[in-house]
């Protein structure tokens, strides 16, 4: 009997679960439950199994294999997308920086984009700008100019010394920035020279030139035979008495009743030499002569012959003394 109570026919349990049990089956079941507490647990779990049919149906509808593929596809996509995004982000950053610097370089760096630059070393050079303006550049000078004059004005920048022969164009003023000077012209020829101590000298050969101090905005107008000097905060104009202001360009040195001090100074400028005068008698003399494309040796010979002086050349240094004194010593 006890043995029987421990065992129960599956059909009976099923009938109980289905709630289709007969009285006989009910009795059998009650006896079985009462026989052992573990039986009750077994039944409860069976009941659980029986009733959870709907709840476990969900697993039937989950396709693990298919969903794993979906995950792998999604994953690859996001990884790829992220990699591309990251790459694109870097690429875009680099591209923007690159184009910005290109624009900057184009706008500012002479020789690279918008502007050209010309720098003369030990030779003098002639440059023709896009508008036909001729620029004679002295030794060790530099000019920065646009390759094309597209804006309303023709802007150039110059350091050193240059002679400009500006092509006339009434609608497009030609503006030179040099040192503290802003020189504006319509069409003319003139010489611009930066000297040491921030001095800029503009000597006009023809036409009319406006010379403006960049700091004070003070303006003077210069015409033929006049020169303007910018020095610190000042602008001054005077008659240009320097015959040889553009000798470096013309290669002609002209002296006309010129005091010797000026002669020496012009020679120093033209030949790039240093002259020390030890002859006192020369201070009161003037000199008249003209040299064209003359080597310094020829100038020395002429001066010695005419003024009866002795010129000793030590490299770039010329020492002038009286002939007689030199002999005595």
């Amino acid at each position, binding site marked *: 009997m006890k043995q029987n109570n421990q065992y129960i026919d599956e059909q009976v349990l099923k009938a109980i679960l289905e709630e289709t049990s007969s009285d006989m089956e009910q009795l059998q079941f009650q006896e079985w439950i009462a026989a052992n507490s573990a039986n009750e647990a077994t039944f409860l779990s069976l009941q659980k199994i029986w009733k959870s049919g709907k709840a476990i149906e969900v*697993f039937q509808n989950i396709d693990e294999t298919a969903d794993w593929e979906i*995950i792998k596809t999604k994953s690859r996509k*996001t990884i790829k997308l992220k990699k591309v995004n990251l790459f694109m982000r870097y690429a875009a950053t680099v591209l923007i920086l690159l184009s910005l610097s290109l624009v900057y370089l184009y706008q500012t760096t002479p020789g690279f984009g918008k502007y050209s630059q010309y720098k003369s070393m030990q030779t003098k050079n002639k440059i023709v700008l896009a508008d036909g303006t001729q620029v004679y550049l002295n030794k060790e000078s530099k000019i920065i100019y646009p390759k094309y004059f597209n804006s309303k004005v023709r802007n150039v920048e110059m350091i050193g010394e240059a002679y400009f022969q500006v092509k006339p164009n009434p609608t497009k003023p030609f503006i030179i920035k040099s040192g503290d000077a802003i020189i504006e012209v319509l069409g003319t020829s003139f010489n611009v020279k930066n000297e040491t101590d921030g001095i800029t000298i503009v000597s006009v050969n023809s036409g009319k030139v406006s010379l403006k101090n960049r700091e004070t905005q003070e303006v003077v107008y210069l015409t033929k035979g006049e020169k303007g000097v910018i020095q610190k905060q000042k602008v001054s104009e005077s008659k240009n008495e320097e015959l040889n202001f553009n000798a470096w360009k013309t290669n002609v040195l002209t002296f006309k009743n010129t005091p010797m001090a000026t002669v020496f100074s012009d020679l120093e400028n033209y030949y790039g030499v240093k002259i020390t005068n030890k002859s006192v008698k020369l201070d009161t003399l003037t000199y008249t002569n003209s040299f064209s494309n003359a080597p310094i040796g020829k100038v020395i010979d002429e001066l010695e012959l005419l003024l009866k002086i002795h010129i000793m050349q030590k490299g770039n240094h010329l020492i002038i003394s009286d002939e007689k004194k030199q002999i005595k010593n």
Partner: protein
Amino acid sequence: MEHALKNQQFENLTETRIEELFKEHYSVLTAYANKFLSDLDDSREIVQDVFVHLFDHRAAVKIHTSAKAHLYTSVRNTCLNTIKQRKNHATHHENIKYLSSGFSLQADKILEQTELEYALFKAIDELPEQCQRIFKLNRMDGFTNQEIADQLGISKRTVETQISKALKSLRITIGPMLATLLIISLFNALK
């Protein structure tokens, strides 16, 4: 506790390890999410995204507890957010109610329940083919024994025998586990 944390080793998430985790937990996680969302497709998507995230950030993801706990927490939190987004939807008011009050405890019970159901599903899945088919038709699809008999062209008696057979087999394979868990949950319920 402190000691346990010190000895905590971060899991090295290889692709193989993730696939293992997927095989072990995907179905339960999805069914679990479905209990909150009552939408199998949404549930699948949420769980898939959790795995995708794990996949893509496997180098960076630091799992402070077990991988399993991490997965369940992620799914549960995503479900919670989804429900919040759906909060105007009348049918989910009930969910919000228990999610906001004592949610964690409730969620743990739901998880336990889902795991149990999955174990049962797996056990059924291992039944002999004919037996399994009949049992599923009866329990999942809700056909009567007569309907199944007619559908399969067998006698009603055979259907009944097969269902009994399934019950017996399940009682042996899954019964002890169910019993233990049921006792525990009953015990908890009594508390």
